[in-house]
């Protein structure tokens, strides 16, 4: 199962930092997402150094804010990327495989 099935995400940028806000469709999935989206799994997924990844939780909003530093090829003013803002990184994040075997398990 992919994160895509459980959560939605919006990508923003500040300089060379990509900011990915992740929210589950169902509030009850929040604790599982918090466990699954840790610095290790996120840095591995993006090929980023763990020290460039930070995660801020907003439990009342059921939101996870992931910051990826040095991930945008220098930021929108310098980057030579096809997508210099990293707008597509929300979709990239939602490709993360969730360590849940099926929906039933998630619902339980």
């Amino acid at each position: 199962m992919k994160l895509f099935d459980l959560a939605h995400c919006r990508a923003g940028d500040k300089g060379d930092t990509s900011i990915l806000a992740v929210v589950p469709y169902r509030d009850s999935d929040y604790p599982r997402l918090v466990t699954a989206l840790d610095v290790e799994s996120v840095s591995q997924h993006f090929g980023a150094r763990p020290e460039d990844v930070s995660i801020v939780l907003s439990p009342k909003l059921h939101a996870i804010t992931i910051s990826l530093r040095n991930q945008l090829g220098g930021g929108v003013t310098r980057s030579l990327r096809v997508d210099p803002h990293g707008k597509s990184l929300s979709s990239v994040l939602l490709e993360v495989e969730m360590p849940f075997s099926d929906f039933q398990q998630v619902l339980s």
Partner: protein
Amino acid sequence: MNTYSVVPKSSDSVRIGVGAGFAGDRLQPAELLANHGNLDALVFECLAERTIALAQQNKANGRSQGFDQKLIERLRGTLPGLLAGGGLAVTNGGAANPVGAALAVAAATRDLTKRPIAVAAVTGDDVLAELDIDASVVLETGESLAKYRDRIVSANAYLGASGVIEAAATGADVIITGRTSDAALFSGALSAKLGWSIEDRANQATGILVGHLLECAGQLTGGYFADGVNKNVPKLWDLGFPMADVSASGNVTLHKLLGSGGLLNRQTVLEQLLYEVENPHRYITPDLTVDFANVAITDHGSDSVAVSGATFVSVPATLKVSVGIRDGYAATGSIVYGGSRSMERATIAANIVRDRWVAVYGRPSEDVDCHFVGINSTFPWATEIPDSAPEVMLKFSLRTFEERVAIEFCREIEALYTNGPAGGGGANASYTETIGILSTLIPRDAVEQKVQVFK
């Protein structure tokens, strides 16, 4: 033809709308809001971080007046409807030249109404003369700003709401600023209309919440949201820009024109609340740092959502300054291969340019950046490249401080037509001079705002 209407406005609240969320935004949704929204204020956010540096440079070179001429179109299209209901227009579209923009807007709108339109310019954000370059630290790198002294083209501080409030107090119909924080354009307009003092921290926090939610216009109402599967947005082609009804005591209801397309619900509001915010517990603005992490979002259905609970944290001692620096040239180009073995041919082409960069020009091959669009251009860290693809666009890019190098790079890409592998089409390449942005801080009291009114 679509018909549009709006829910009634309660007598104790002020209605603020957004007419543009970025410099390239559509014109027509703002006109619909101005004509059908019964607005008290309409805000146009048109100034990205680097736009002002580019505008400063164009102004210095005499290439432009230092602001985007589209601002005049935006205002001409909305002022008749807005002013008929006593509404106020606020924009940061003055860019590098708020006074020039105000004069131009005043001149270009004289025919619109019987009475003269008063246009205020808020200045003071240009701090190039005031900034102590030797004492300033680059926030991104920790270096001294002095390292970049010879390349600096502009320095603009992010101003808060007080300039907008002061300008509104003159009775201005239109307020044009340069670098004012996006949220403050809205909190300033709300403060003017609702009589909130800048010291009223609770209401200013609410004003900043409203500003942050509205500042990207259609991104609150279903833009930048649809995913084609789980998140569907009705009539996205007719995306309606949002409005907020705000009471003097700080109750906020978000909505959009009835009959317009788009979607406003808990999900769209939550995504925008968190958009570009690194730490929702501390959203820093020039006027105050606000905690968004406990905001309550109440979805009333029918594209109506109430928000509350943004709280004051502190008043920052410093203001952020965007420093524009000359940053050399960026050259990009591409060529397309289709059919069988397109990946193989694109790879040959990439290697040709890299090999010639070394053998003919004596420059490092690492200068030449290559991506396969359709394969790995948005996943640049993914190294796994498939053996075949039905078609591929090979995209080249390079940065340089020498214009001649950029020109030579573009020529090499175009030369692939007759000198590269078989069947390469659509070769093109171009380069632009680029401006980089560094951030630093300036003491609040080093910045002096000024309001001038033109008719």
